[in-house]
C-alpha cells in the first residue's frame, strides 16, 4: 500500500457531506471515517478539513453544535442541512458521471 493520497481539491466537500448525511459527526470523526471507508486510500489533513467545514457552514450546507462525544468529552458536531442534502445529491450525480467517464477512458486500451 502506497502513501495515502491527498484528496483531489473539490472532492472533499462532497465526501464530508456524504459522511455526515447519516448522523452528525465531529471533525476528527469525519476524517477518520473517510480514511476508514477508503481503506486508507484517502487521508484528509486537518489543514484542509477544518477550513472546508468552515466554508460549508458559511454556505449554509452544514450547521454545527457542541455536544458530548462518545468518550464523554465535548466535541463540535456537524449536521447536514436541507440545502446541504441538495448539494450532496448534485455532488453524487456529478461524481458518478465523472468516475464513469474516467473508467471508460481507462477501460479502453
Amino acid at each position: 500500500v502506497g502513501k495515502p493520497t491527498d484528496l483531489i481539491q473539490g472532492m472533499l466537500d462532497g465526501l464530508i457531506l456524504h459522511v455526515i448525511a447519516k448522523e452528525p459527526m465531529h471533525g476528527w470523526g469525519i476524517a477518520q471515517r473517510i480514511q476508514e471507508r477508503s481503506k486508507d486510500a484517502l487521508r484528509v489533513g486537518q489543514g484542509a478539513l477544518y477550513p472546508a467545514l468552515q466554508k460549508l457552514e458559511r454556505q449554509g450546507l452544514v450547521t454545527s453544535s457542541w455536544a458530548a462525544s462518545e468518550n464523554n468529552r465535548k466535541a463540535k458536531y456537524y449536521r447536514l442541512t436541507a440545502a446541504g442534502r441538495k448539494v450532496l445529491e448534485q455532488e453524487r450525480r456529478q461524481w458518478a458521471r465523472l468516475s464513469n467517464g474516467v473508467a471508460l477512458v481507462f477501460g479502453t486500451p
Partner: protein
Amino acid sequence: MWFSHVRTLLRRAKRFLLQRRLDRDVRAEMEEHLRHQTDAYIASGLSRADAARLAALEIGAIDAWREACRDTWRVSFLQDALRDAAMACRVWRREWAIAATVVVTLAIGVGANLAVFALLNTLMFLPPASAREPDRLVSVQEPISYRRLLELRQHLRQLDLVAYTRVWLTLTASDEPKSVPAECVTPSYFRVLGVPAALGRVFRDAESSQDDAMGVVVSHGFWQRELGGSPSAIGASVSIGHVPFHVVGVAPRGFTGVEPATTDLWVLVTDAPTQCSFTGESLLQSSGGGWLNLVGRLADGVTREQAEAELAAAATPDEIFQRAMERRRSDRLVSLQASRRFGTQRDVSIATWLFGGAIAVLLIACANIAGLLSIRAFDKQHEIAVRLQLGATRRRVMSQVAVEQMVLSIAAALAALGVAYGLGVILRKFFAYGELFTRIEPAWMVSAVAIALLSGLVAGAWPALQVSRVNATSLRRSRRLGGTTRSWLRSGLLVTQVALALSLSIGAGLFVRSVQESRRGLGYDPDGLAVAAIDLRKFGYRDGQETEDALDQVAQRLARLPDVEGVSLSTGFFLGVGGPAAVTPERVMVSAVSPGYFRLIGTRLVSGREFDATDDVRAPRVAVIDSDVAKRRWPDRSAVGQCVVGAGSECVTVVGVSEARRTSIGTVASQMEMFVPLSQRGAGTSPSLILLRVNPSVSLSRAEIARTIRESLPRLPAVSVKSFDELADVQTRSWRLGRLLFGVFGLFAVVLSAIGLYASLAFGVRQRRAEIGLRMALGSQRWEVVGLIARHAMRLVLAGLMVGGAMGVTGARYMRALLFHDSRSDVTVYVAAVAVVTVAAAAGCLVPAIRAARISPMAALRED
C-alpha cells in the same frame, strides 16, 4: 435569491462581531481533534507521551490553521488591518525610542512645509478675507482727490469705484489716548468689496452724516479686545479725536481691509475729514493732488481692458489715467490680489526660497527615517524569518510592516499640526495681517496626513523591500563576520542629509549677516535710539514763545526720566517718521537740530564742532554738513570755515562736518544732509521729532515717555514712541523672516543629520563588532579602531560638505537681490556654516566610534 444573500450577509456580520468567541471555538475544536488523535494513537499501542508528541507533530502550527479557517470568512482584510494597527501600537510602545525619533523627525519635516505653505498662501494668494468674488476686484494704481472721485463715479458704468485711505485714528475715551490703524472709506466700500457685517451692519450707500453721532465699523479683533465681544457693543459710543462715533457694525473675522495690514476701524471719509487727511485740514473740497486710493469691482461681464478704456475716456487730458495711456502702460487697473502682493514682494521671494528649505527639511527627515527603519528592518530579519516559517504569508508580514509605518505617519501628522501651529504663532509676529494659521482647518489636517503618509511611504519603501527579501527557509545563521551591508544607498542618504543641512545653514547665515550688516555703518548708533513724532501744527501749536517754552520743558522733563540718557529735538524726517523735510535743489536734506544732537544720535563729526547753546538767534548763522556734501562742494580743502549761502544770500558758516548717514536701513546709499541749529531755523518750521537715547538694556517705557510729552503739550492727542528696532522693523522684516525660518530649518537639518550619522554608524559598529574584536585581538590599537570607524563617516561628511557647499554658493547667487548689499560675498558665513555642520557631524560620529574602541575583543569574539 436576494434572501440568501441577506442571510449570508447576516451570518458574516454575526461572525465578524463574534470573532473572538469563534476564534475560541476553533481553538477548542483543534484541541478536541488533538485529543481524539492522541487517543487513537494510544489505542494503537503507543505510550501516552509518544502519542501526544506524534499527534502534536501531525497537527502542526495551530495558528496557520486558524488563519486558514478565518480566511474562509473573507472579512479578514479589515480585521487584519485593525489588528495590525493594534499590534503596531504595541510594537511601537516597546520600541518607543525609534518610534519617537521617527514621529518627531517626520513631524518637523511635515510641519515646516505646512507652515511655509500657509505663509506663502497668505502672502501670495490671499484676497481680502471675506470678500465676495475677489477676482472681480481691481485696484487703480494712482490716488485721486475726493471731488474727482465723485465726478468719476458719475461717468463710470463698468467699474464701481470706492476709495479708502489708511490713517491712524486716536481713541480719546480714556485717559490714555491711543492710536489705532484705520481706513477712511466711502459709503459703498463694504458693498463693493462684498464684505458683510459679522454683527450689526456695514455702511449703507446713502449713509448720511445727518445723525447726531456718526457711525464706525470695527474689526472683529477690536470688538473682541476693546468692546468685550458682546452683541451689546452695537450702538456703543467710541470717541475718536474727541468726536463721538457710534459702533454700527463688526467686520467679519479676518477682514483687515484692502491692504495687507491690520485695520481696526472704518469711518466715512466725510465724517472725519480732518482726521482722515494727512495735512490735518479737510481735503474734501480740494481738487488738487490725489490722496484717496481706489478699489473697484468690475461690472458683470466686463473685462479689465474694457473698464480701463472707460476709465481713460472719463479722465481729463491732464489726468494720470490719460498720461498712463500715452505711455502705453496697461497697468492702470491691476487685480486687487496682485496689488496686495506688491508691498510684500521680497517677503514672497524669500518665502519661496523657504519653501525649498522646508522641502529640504522634509527630505532630510525622510532620509533619516529611511535610514533608521532600514536598520530596524535588518534587526528584524530574524523575527520575520521565524514568522514566515510559522506560516504567516508574505503578504501578511508586508502589510504588518506597512501598517506599522502608517501608524507612525498618522501620529507624525498630528504632531506636525502642532509644529506648524507653533511656527504660525512665531510668524504672526512678523505678519500682523491675515489668518496665518490662527486655527487648524480640515484642509490642513488632510494635507498633513497626506504629506506624512506619502513621506512615510517614500521613507518606508526601502526598508519594507529589505523585509520582503527575507527568506523563510534560510534563517540567517549568524551575522558575526562579514555581512556589512555598506550599502551605497545608505551612504547616499547620509551625503544628501549633510549637503542639505549645509545649504540650509548657509541660507540662515546669509540672512543673519544681512540683518547684522544692515545695522552697521548707518552713520548713527541704533542701539537704544527712540523717536517720538510730534505733529505740533496739526494740533494747533503755532510758532512762538509759548511753543518754544513747552518744547524746552518737554526736553528737560524727559531728560529727568530714569532710563533716558539724552534728549534732542529735530525738524524734518528721520527713520521714516516726522514731518516733511526741507530739501535744497541740490537734493541736500536740511534739518534743524537742537544742541548736542550729534552726540545723542551717535553721529561722528569728521572735523569741526557741533552746535552748542551759544549758537542762538543772535549769534552768527552756522551749519554742519555731512562729508558727502563737503566732498562735493569743497573737494580740495576743508569745509570748516567755508560759507554756504542761506536764504537772503547771507553767509552761513560751516562749523563742522559729520559722517554721512545712510538713507534707510535697507540700502547702503547715503542721503546728503545739512544741519542748522534749531534756534536759527527758518520761519514756518517746527520740531517734528523728539529723539531719545534710552538705556538699551531696559525695555522702553513708552507710556511714561508719551505721558511726559503730553504733560507739556496737552493738545497732542496721542504720542507714539518707537524704538529704532520698531521703526526698522518693516525694512528688515524679510531678512528677519529669512533668518528665523532658515535658522530654524537649518537647526532641524543639522540635528537630524547628526542623528542620522549617529544611527548609521552605531549600526555599522554593531554589525562589525566581531570584526573589530578580531582586529583588536590581532593587535589593533584603540585609536586605530576609532580611525577605522570615523574615516568612513568623515569621507561621507566631506562629500556632503562639498555638494552642500556648491548648492549653497549657487543658491546664494540667485538670492543676492534678496540680501542686504553684499552679504553674499561674506566668506565668514560659509566658513561658519561648514564649521557648524562639521562639529555636529563629528559629534554624531564620536559616540559610536568611542563605543567601537571600547569593544572587548574577548567578549566580541565569544558572542553567538
